Structures are given as structure tokens and as C-alpha cells.
């Protein structure tokens, strides 16, 4: 059954990098909430252990087996999402949570995994150089359905994280230029309809804020302004661990999840930011390079789409906290507080490592 040789191929370096980022995250979640008595640190540590175990379990199962279950898994997740819309408990104004005792879980996170697997399954037998219209339509629909379901919760931030997966599919499958025009038209149409009917006022305000952040420093621009002050006042070397006044004194909202990097920037300064960027880039490099050692097309898609998902979330977050992107509530994978996203991201990286360790496609004699 299991070939013991493959376990020698486990990419421990990537796993260690990922755990390192998660540990840095926990350390700064502690700094961010220094003045608050809270179980955040303990909870996140438990999630880290759970996620690591889940990752190891995932490695046992060959990704090809996982791919064969991609469709039922995808369907199941969409049913859960639809169910949440109808029966879900409203937490922080959205119906995105499943509650298990003290732990809450967001199915929308796990949906990303299902989407990646189904897209990889779809393209595993696709050998064209350019994307066909059918492939274009199918992949767009696969992402579009959960996107709508999540956006309706309403959790636009999480929904948007699905977009890099679709984008990754387009890139990898070779989207013909003519479809780009179609996408542009559809985006504009959706943008128009969304702005007028779909977006809530606070979401519109966030986009407006991006354009003029200083206009109303106490209102919608407040978070951004406080985040910039935290980063800027950190300077080159920072104020020292636990010493950041912006985050310590609660001027910075959502400092333990979406704005965790601002906390790091305040405590450790530009050097701290540089450090995080470097670690993250090495990590992303290792994810992308898994593509080169992937034994088949399905593996390539898994590795690339996973890398796109994690890389884009990181990129959006680091742009968001300095005002280069609207504040949409997208956390940094591994670094920000949040159990479901930690588990999901561990599993996604687990998929990549799963592909990598089975680089030699042995056929049993």
C-alpha cells in the first residue's frame, strides 16, 4: 500500500517555514492583545497543533485519491454554504460560522480546498496549450458558485480570496486574449451591478476610503490611518516587542488578525517587515517550485493554485494595511489570528507537499 520511500521525500523545510510563520504570528498576537486578558494565544496554539496533525494525516492519502473525491467534496461544501445561508448563526453580522463548543469554524475556508481540488481534477486530463471556451466556462463556474454563496453571507473578503484561484487557472491553462475581453466586460457588469445593488454601505465606504484615506480619520479611514501610524512610528528598528503604542492601546482595530503585520511593523520596524517578507518569499518560492517536481498535470495545478491562493492573500493583506488595496478583511495566511484559515492553509500546503513527496510516480510491478 504505502511506499515508505515517499516519506523520505517530505519537504520538511516548507513545513518548518510554515510553522515558523505561524509561531511568529502567535508571538505578535500576544503583543497585539497585551493589555487584554484573552484566550487568543492559547486558542491559536491549539489550532496550530490541530492543523499540524491534520497536515500529517493528509500526507498519508495520495493526492490522486483526493482528486478522485474532488467533485463530491466540492458539492458537499456548497451544500454546507447554502445551508449556512439559511440556518447559520449570525456572528459579527455574517452567517459564516459553524460552532463546535468553544471553537468556531468557517466552512468558507475549507471551500477553497475543494475548489482547488476540483479545478486540478478538471485540468488533470487537459492537454491543450490554450484554454478552450468550455474549460474557461467550467472553471469560472466552479469558482463562481461558492463565490456567490460566500459573498451572500456576506463575507466579501473570503469570497474574493477565491479569485486568485481562478486567476491561477487562467494563467496556467493559457487563457486566450479574446476571453480577457469577455472577462473585462463581465467584471465591469458585475462591478456596476454590485456597486449599486450588492455592496453594503460600509463596503462602498472602504473603497472610497482607499482613494482618500485622510478625509475622515475617525470614520472609515480610521483603521487605515491608525495602521499607517503604527507602521510609520515603528521606523527602522521598531519600538520593541510589546512596546508598540498604537496596537497596545487599541488604537489599531483588528490588530490580531487583519492588521497583525502593522503590529509587527510597529514593534520591530522596517527590519521586521523585511524579515517577514523574506521568509514569506522563500516560502512562496518553495510552493511555486513544487510545480517543477510535480509528476503530473493534476499535481501542477494543485501546487500552482495553492501557491497563488496563499501568495495573493499575503500580497493583498500587505497592500491593504498601507492603503494600496481596500480594507476587505483578508488575513495573512499563517500569520493572522484565526483557526479555520490556519487549518485550511495548512491543508492547502499539505496538498502541495503531498504532490511534492510523490514526485516519483512509481508503478508497482
Amino acid at each position: 500500500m504505502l511506499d515508505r520511500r515517499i516519506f523520505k521525500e517530505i519537504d520538511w523545510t516548507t513545513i518548518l517555514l510554515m510553522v515558523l510563520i505561524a509561531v511568529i504570528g502567535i508571538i505578535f498576537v500576544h503583543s497585539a492583545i497585551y493589555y487584554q486578558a484573552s484566550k487568543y494565544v492559547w486558542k491559536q496554539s491549539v489550532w496550530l497543533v490541530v492543523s499540524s496533525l491534520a497536515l500529517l494525516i493528509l500526507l498519508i492519502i495520495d493526492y490522486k485519491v483526493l482528486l478522485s473525491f474532488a467533485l463530491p467534496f466540492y458539492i458537499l461544501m456548497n451544500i454546507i454554504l447554502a445551508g449556512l445561508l439559511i440556518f447559520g448563526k449570525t456572528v459579527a453580522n455574517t452567517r459564516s460560522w459553524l460552532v463546535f463548543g468553544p471553537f468556531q469554524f468557517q466552512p468558507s475556508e475549507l471551500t477553497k480546498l475543494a475548489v482547488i481540488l476540483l479545478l486540478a481534477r478538471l485540468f488533470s486530463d487537459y492537454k491543450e496549450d490554450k484554454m478552450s471556451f468550455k474549460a474557461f466556462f467550467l472553471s469560472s463556474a466552479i469558482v463562481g458558485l461558492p463565490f456567490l454563496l460566500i459573498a451572500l453571507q456576506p463575507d466579501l473578503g473570503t469570497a474574493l480570496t477565491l479569485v486568485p484561484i481562478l486567476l491561477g487557472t487562467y494563467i496556467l491553462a493559457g487563457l486566450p486574449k479574446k476571453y480577457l475581453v469577455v472577462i473585462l466586460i463581465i467584471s465591469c457588469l458585475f462591478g456596476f451591478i454590485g456597486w449599486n445593488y450588492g455592496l453594503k454601505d460600509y463596503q462602498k465606504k472602504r473603497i472610497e476610503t482607499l482613494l482618500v484615506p485622510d478625509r475622515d480619520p475617525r470614520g472609515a479611514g480610521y483603521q487605515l490611518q491608525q495602521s499607517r501610524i503604527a507602521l510609520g512610528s515603528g521606523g527602522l528598528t521598531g519600538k520593541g516587542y510589546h512596546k508598540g503604542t498604537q496596537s497596545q492601546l487599541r488604537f489599531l482595530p483588528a490588530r490580531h488578525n487583519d492588521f497583525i503585520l502593522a503590529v509587527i511593523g510597529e514593534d520591530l520596524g522596517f527590519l521586521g517587515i523585511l524579515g517577514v517578507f523574506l521568509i514569506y518569499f522563500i516560502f512562496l518560492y518553495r510552493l511555486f517550485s513544487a510545480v517543477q517536481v510535480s509528476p503530473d498535470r493534476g499535481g501542477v495545478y494543485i501546487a500552482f493554485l495553492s501557491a497563488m491562493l496563499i501568495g495573493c492573500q499575503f500580497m493583498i493583506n500587505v497592500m491593504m494595511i498601507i492603503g494600496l488595496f481596500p480594507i476587505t478583511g483578508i488575513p495573512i495566511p499563517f500569520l493572522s489570528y484565526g483557526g479555520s484559515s490556519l487549518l485550511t492553509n495548512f491543508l492547502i500546503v499539505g496538498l502541495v507537499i503531498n504532490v511534492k513527496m510523490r514526485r516519483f510516480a512509481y508503478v508497482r510491478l
Partner: protein
Amino acid sequence: MAKIYEDLSLLIKRARLTLIVFGLVLFLILVFYWKIQILDHQKYWKMAEANHLRALPLPAPRGLIYDRQKIILADNQPSFKVSLLRESIKNDSQAIERVSQLLNLRTEELKARIDRYRWFQTYEPVIIKDNLKLEEVAMIEARKEEFPELQLQVEPRRYYPFGTAAAHVLGYLQEVSPEEIKNNPHRKWRGGEMIGKAAVEKQYDDYLTGQDGQLIETVDSLGRSLGEVNRTEPIKGQDLMLSIDLDLQQKAEELLQGKEGAIIVLEAESGECLAWISSPSYDPNRFITRFSPEEWLSIINDAARPLENRVIRGQYSPGSIFKVVTALTALETGLITERTAFFCPGSINLYGKEFACWFKPGHGLLSLPEAIKNSCNVYFYQLGRRLNVDTIARYARALGLGQMTGVDIPGEKEGLVPSSDWKKKTRGEVWYPGETISVSIGQGPVLVTPLQVAALTACLANRGIKVKPRVTRLDDKIRPVQEKSGLKPENLEKIIEGMWRSVNDGGTGHGAYQPGFDICGKTGSTQVISREKAEKMIQRGEEPTKTHSWFSGFAPRYQPQVVVTVLVEFGGMGGQTAAPIAGEIFKLYREKYVRQANL
């Protein structure tokens, strides 16, 4: 079996390209971080500081005010006030409503209150209620968590232990107004600062005001204090000693109880005021709040005008007091000598008009000292007939009338010494000789303040040396401000002879007589104006002149020590009302000071 490999090179190429794009974009983003963290570091550092540090003023106690015996007249007492931190409520009308409900204030009142602070930085707390009762303090303290925008603070509050006593010397405090703040941009006011608005509290405000301290504390985004960072203790203002003698002051106040008028007791040589009474008085403790305008209105609308400092702001007709000026003018110009006599038949017809003496039967033939003693009008009509009004005005000015005395209490009025120029300027008419007749006995348009009369009396007592009155104690370093009037001492001696007789020889001032104390004085009663004249004045929309009772004198005759000036509004004849009051004060002074000196 062989391994099966697909050709994935195209996909790998696309993935590698994507990674490169990722790397480039991340590098570009790092440049933005560089801009914020390194290039704009100073700017954001300052913003962070302003964000989490809050400076609160620690009000400095004002200096104490003592009387000359070191009795505290103005003290400080701890008092609770509650302030609103504007930063914590932004401009939320809901929050304002909540606060006004808690403190039982009207919402519009609170809004107006916040508006009063428009010239201050937003971190300056707005004082919204002061002199809190203990229950109120406990209630606010208990709901601290709910109302992080409210702040309780103890402040030193001015307290006048003797209430109405010497109120017109001490003055009172009121909150600095937005106009004052706007007009004094160089002065650093504290929000809601109580500043001197009258008398000594105003005149010596800078001296009495201490230096505020400052408390810098760390706050969180909701304005909750997380602890002190730095504290500069306030420095109390300097103490001030008044020349007022509280005992004399209070007894003199009793003598004017229920009457409207003024009393000044001053040391002849130094000009230091021992007592300064403007009656009725008020209790300055009632103003030491930033609120309750009703009380304030009741005082300013009082018909007896208790806030008016009659000593320096009441302008009265001097009546017969002015006769010493006329007499001096006649002596100095060589018109008369002390032996020059005129006959008083009870009235005299001049310029076709009948001028009466107050003593209808007439004084008969009298010389200058007798004329002063009896305050004979006809004698002075005779002088007025021979004198030019401008000459009289010159000597009146030399004696300090028609100008401010320069006392260290603000708001003094000048009074009025009429002259032909003055009449031309104000009424566009020439001066009629008949008017000089009125002026010669202190009637007509002459106006004086009680303090001017006291200063004039001091000048006579000092044999021509003018002294500037003051209410603060001179120390060894400061000499009294003296000035020669240029009047001949021998002429003054002649006037003093008449004033001595007035009190000690059965003259009009005999009511002030005190055995064993050589008092020299002059009475004055601003005669009731004739009915037809009063009616004419009413027709012209003017108020008819009041009839007032004057006495001003000094003692002892040689080496004079004390000057007492008494004015009682509507007091009738000076000899009947003002002179006995002055006599009482001379007596008190003698008991306290002269006996001590003899020991």
C-alpha cells in the same frame, strides 16, 4: 516498467513567470513600506505620540490675600469639578445627551458650554460642572467605566472667609471669556480658568496667578487612562498683603449698614487705605462658579448696584467740601487773606439772581476760618464773584480733582472739574459768571469720587504733598508715591484752621468731634436742587442730582496720621449723617493705632 512523464514544460514556464511577477510586486510593495516607515517616520511618530498621550492641566492655586494683620481675606479650598473630554465623544450628539442626563444639565446648555472652548485645543477638557456635591462626585466615580469621557478633578477654589467684607477691594473671579482668550493670544489661559474680574483680584491677577502644572498620561483609544507618564506640579501664585485693616473695615461697614455710600480710611503719609467701603456690598463667593447665571443676574440687576465700586466709580457733586478749593484759590491768588471778611445776610443777589445761604438768618460778618467752620455760602459766593472759573479749575486740578488718583484698583472714574473750555467743548456755550457762583460752593457741574476727596484731604493734611492712594501694603523697599502740589503751606494752614474749628469749635463738622483727638474736617451736603430745575432736568431726560451727605477730615491736626472720608447717598446734611460716622471711625482708629503708638 518505466516511469511515465508528461511534458509539463509549458506549465512550468508559466508558473515560473508568475513567481517572478510575485517577486517584483512584493519588492515594489516593500518600497511603499520603506516610504512609510523610514522616510515618513518622524511624521507618524508624532502622530502616534499625540494619539496616546494626553496632557491635563493641574490648576495652580492662586496666591492668598491677607489684610495688614495677616488675616486671610482670600483663601483657596479644594472643590470638585467634572470635565468632558471632547476627543472621547467626537461630536456625537447622543453622547452629549447621555452626559447631560447624567449630570442633570440641559443639552443646549452643555452644547453652549462646549462651544465656549472653541479657542482651545481639543484635548483641553471642557469643565461642565463645578462645585460638585459629594453625592455627585460619588455618582460620577461609580459610573466611570460607562463614561470614560468624563473626568473628575479637584481644583483649588477661591474662598473669601469674610464674605461681603472688603469685597470691593478684593474683587471677584469669573471664568475667562472666549473674547478675552481671543484677544490675548500670547497669554496661556487654561480652559475654564477663573480669573480676577474686579479690584485687587483683577489688578494683581498676574501676580496672584500661579503656574499650572501638567499631568501627562497614557490613554487608550477610548480615552481611558492607563497611567501617568509625567507630572509637573503646579506652582502656587504669590501671596499679597493688603493695607486694609479688617477690624476697621468691618466696623466701618457696620456704620454704613443699610445705607448706600462710601467710606475711605487712609494713612495720610503713605496713602495706604485701611478701610474701603462701598455700600451695599456683595458676597464674592457667589461668583466663584462657572454657572448659575440667575444668581449673577440678580446681583447685576439689583437697583442698589452692589457691584458698583462707589469709592472710585461713584461721581458725586462735592457740595461744600469744594469750598476748601475755592478758599485755597482765593488765598493763593492773593485775592484774600485770612482776615478778609464778608458779611452774610442770609442771601445775596448776584447777576440778578438770588443766592441763598443754608443758614437763613445769616452768619453776619465773618473771616475765612469762620466761613469754613460755618460753611457759609455767602462768603464763598463773594469769592466766586471775584474769581475766574478757570483759576478755580487750575487749583482743583492741583489738588487732584478731575483726574484719576492712580489707586491700584482698576475702573476708576475721573470726575469733572468744569472750566470755560470744557463748557465750550461739550455744550458749545460760553461760561456765565453766574455759574462760577454755583461752582464756588461745589454745586453746578462739579463731580468728584469719594477717593478723590480722600486724596484731596490727605494733600491738605500733608501740607501740600499729594500721595497716591493704594490698597496693597508698602514694604520697606517701596516708598509711597508722593508729589508736591505747589501750594503754599501757610495758605493750607489757614484752611486747616477753619476745618479744625468746624469740628472742634461748634462748626458744621462738630458731629465728628472726638475728645482728645485733634480732628480737622469739612462737611458737605449737595444741596437739593430747586424743584423747577429738577423738573427741567427730567424734561431733558436727565436724572436729577442726588442729595448726598459728605464729611472728609484728618487727624491729628499736626503730624496727621489718618484721613477719613464718608459719603452717604441721600444722607441729608453732611453734619448730621456723615460727620458722626466719621467721628466713630476716628475713634476706632485712635483706639487701635494711637494708643498703641503711645505705649
